[in-house]
């Protein structure tokens, strides 16, 4: 499967002079469907330099599993077939050394698992409260810490631990709900959603939790920010048009653009390493499947 040059036909149309039509076409372009099984999917990400995708799928009645999809032949396999509990929200370091994910535990609690695939070791972070949870872990670019949403005494905040699952640091201590942290490629900024001012809006803060500033201000929810590889843009999902669509905003808070426009849910955007495409979970064909969208020309225009 070649997914490095999708929608090249659209680019050719632009070059041949159909500029306006081409721009509309790109905005509303039919995404390329990567899966067709319709199994409920959550939180995908590219791995192996864009050659594969890992996502969570509700593949059994009582289990959500991490699945690796090899894009060259569409082969799917469980990331860890030995796991019997729910596992989801995976992240992999750029060099492939570290894999982290969320694992349900012996109660409503969910924990963070960090695997060093090079050393063959595993570290865990377990919330203090018996019902505490970890969601959405992200490995920092310098591979020193893992950032995540922590629901524990003190509310739902953004926090981080080191690669051994120790030295917990809470980066937010606000009212409301904080969620979906994303670290910029240079490791200096964190984008996240927070309801501290009402509904879920996007915010930025420094990597140490300081200098919090609001990025979006729409009454309907903006969530799941994802940094482009060049650190200039942030993709996110938003309900601002009634149902969930994918948007891109410049990191300075300007030029918010809607990328998808479909009556069914488009959600969970993540960037391809080439920075020209987004991987999303969409229900546009009724089923829950992975799609690739070309966004390069749209977001730069």
């Amino acid at each position, binding site marked *: 499967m070649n997914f490095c040059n999708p929608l090249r036909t659209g680019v050719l149309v632009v070059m041949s002079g159909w500029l306006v039509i081409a721009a509309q076409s790109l905005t509303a372009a039919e995404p390329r469907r990567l899966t067709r099984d319709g199994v409920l999917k959550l939180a995908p990400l590219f791995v192996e330099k864009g050659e594969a995708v890992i996502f969570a799928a509700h593949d059994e009645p009582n289990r959500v599993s991490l699945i690796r999809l090899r894009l060259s032949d569409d082969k799917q396999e469980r990331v860890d077939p030995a796991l019997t509990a729910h596992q989801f929200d995976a992240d992999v370091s750029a060099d492939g050394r570290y894999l982290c994910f969320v694992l349900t535990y012996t109660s409503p609690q969910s924990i963070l698992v960090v695997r060093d695939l090079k050393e063959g070791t595993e570290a865990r972070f377990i919330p203090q409260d018996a019902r505490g949870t970890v969601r959405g872990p992200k490995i920092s670019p310098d591979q020193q810490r893992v950032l995540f949403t922590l629901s524990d005494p003190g*509310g739902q905040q953004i926090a981080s631990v080191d690669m051994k699952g120790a030295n917990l640091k809470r980066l937010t201590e606000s009212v409301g709900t904080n969620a979906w942290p994303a670290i910029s490629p240079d490791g200096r900024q964190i984008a996240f959603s927070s309801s501290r001012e009402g509904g879920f809006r996007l915010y930025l803060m420094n990597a140490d939790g300081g200098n919090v500033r609001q990025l979006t201000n729409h009454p309907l929810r903006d969530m799941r920010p994802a940094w482009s590889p060049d650190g200039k843009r942030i993709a996110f999902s938003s309900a601002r048009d009634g149902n969930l669509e994918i948007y891109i905003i410049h990191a300075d808070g300007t030029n918010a653009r809607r990328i998808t426009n479909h009556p069914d849910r488009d959600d969970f955007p993540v960037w391809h390493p080439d920075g020209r495409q987004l991987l999303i979970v969409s229900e546009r064909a009724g089923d829950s499947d992975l799609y690739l969208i070309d966004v390069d020309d749209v977001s730069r225009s």
Partner: protein
Amino acid sequence: MFGLGNYRVRDCQGLTRRSFLRFGAGLPFAAGLLGGAPLLSAADARKAKSVMLIWLVGGPSHLDLFDPKPNAPTEFRGPFAAIPTRTAGMQFTELLPRLAASSDRFSVVRTNINYNGGHRPAGSIAWTCGRASDGGEDGNGKPTGYPPHLGSIIARSRGSNGLPAFMSLSRGPVGDGVGPSLGYGGGVWGSRYDPFMVDCSKQGQVSISELKLLDGLTPSRLDDRQRVLSELNRVRRGLDQAQLDQWDGLHQKALQLLRGGDTLNAFDLSRESASTRTRYGRTSFAQSCLLGRRLVEAGVPYVQVNWSQFAEVFYPFSDYGWDTHADNFGLLADWHGPLLDQALSTLLDDLHERGLLETTLVVCMGEFGRTPRINGIGSRDHWHPCYFSVWAGGGVQPGRVIGESDARGEYPLTNPITPEMVGTTIAELAGVGTQQRAEYRVLEGGRVIDELL
């Protein structure tokens, strides 16, 4: 595709239906195996020919779905914005855009109460319409005189037209990690009034787990009555004493189902178009809603569609119930909100488009709501003093808001809607009138929620 016992049938292969039909026509069993109750009557004046109870196992948050409080303090209101609906003066949260756009199809009660804050007792109290006053869950086993489930009451009154009259769509008996709720059955009326359990997978594959004991029941061996009885007896000889106690009920259910003939088609979701199946959503709950609609079309008087088997979200065995003690807002945004919005709105649209909504009462609720005050870990716990239910069709006037909760969603400002009132209203609309309720000694003293009618 559906499964009978351990045998799976794919209709498109055309290998089984005729056998079923011949078998069904050849059996001398009388109608109404559930207690020999009367057959449905065309002259019956009931408003709801069928009832679909959509049960949101685990306790969905009322503030984050159907009763938002945008002006409440931060520690109560939650992160989801309130959006307008088609019903004047009624708002939902942004998690339910499709239901908001179709709110003229249903009414919402915002002052439901329960008497207990535990999943199993609250479930039992709700399903027995308040009769299991303590839920009976604290004793050892089912207490003597345990009251029957509302579905059992309606099934007894209405009888069977070929399919079991009380169908339960879920992976198994509904409850929590400790065990099933005791109120999910016939209670003092006996096991023959228990629900007929059907499991529907996200692929629309239907299986009847109760009959898996009858390993010999394959359609290829069911081509005449003699062979059927021989097969059943063969299986019976293989049972131990404990299993023999279940034998009669299983025997009756198996034969009842097999004599259903054409009604068996109701279980076959492959007869639905791909667009219809995907319109509901490819989850077990969504496909169960579609299966429920087919059972309603086939004349089943009472269908309970359960969101999950277990209340819990995250336990390793659980199946994403609504018990969001932790990560309530993330889970509702990721999972529960969009899936409920899609499946329930599609069910109501589908019933309406087929002309079935007028004669089908759809009620959607859980055993309780969740704490308006956000807990110490940023989520919500159990809350039974005030929560919601959604009512559509079957004689209910749509587009209404019944009852008002206080500014924080903690308690009713208007008359609370009790489990007795919920049960009495459903029973009344389903044709189980005052006299019959008195004869059955159920729902005594309950009153109908007049504001819905």
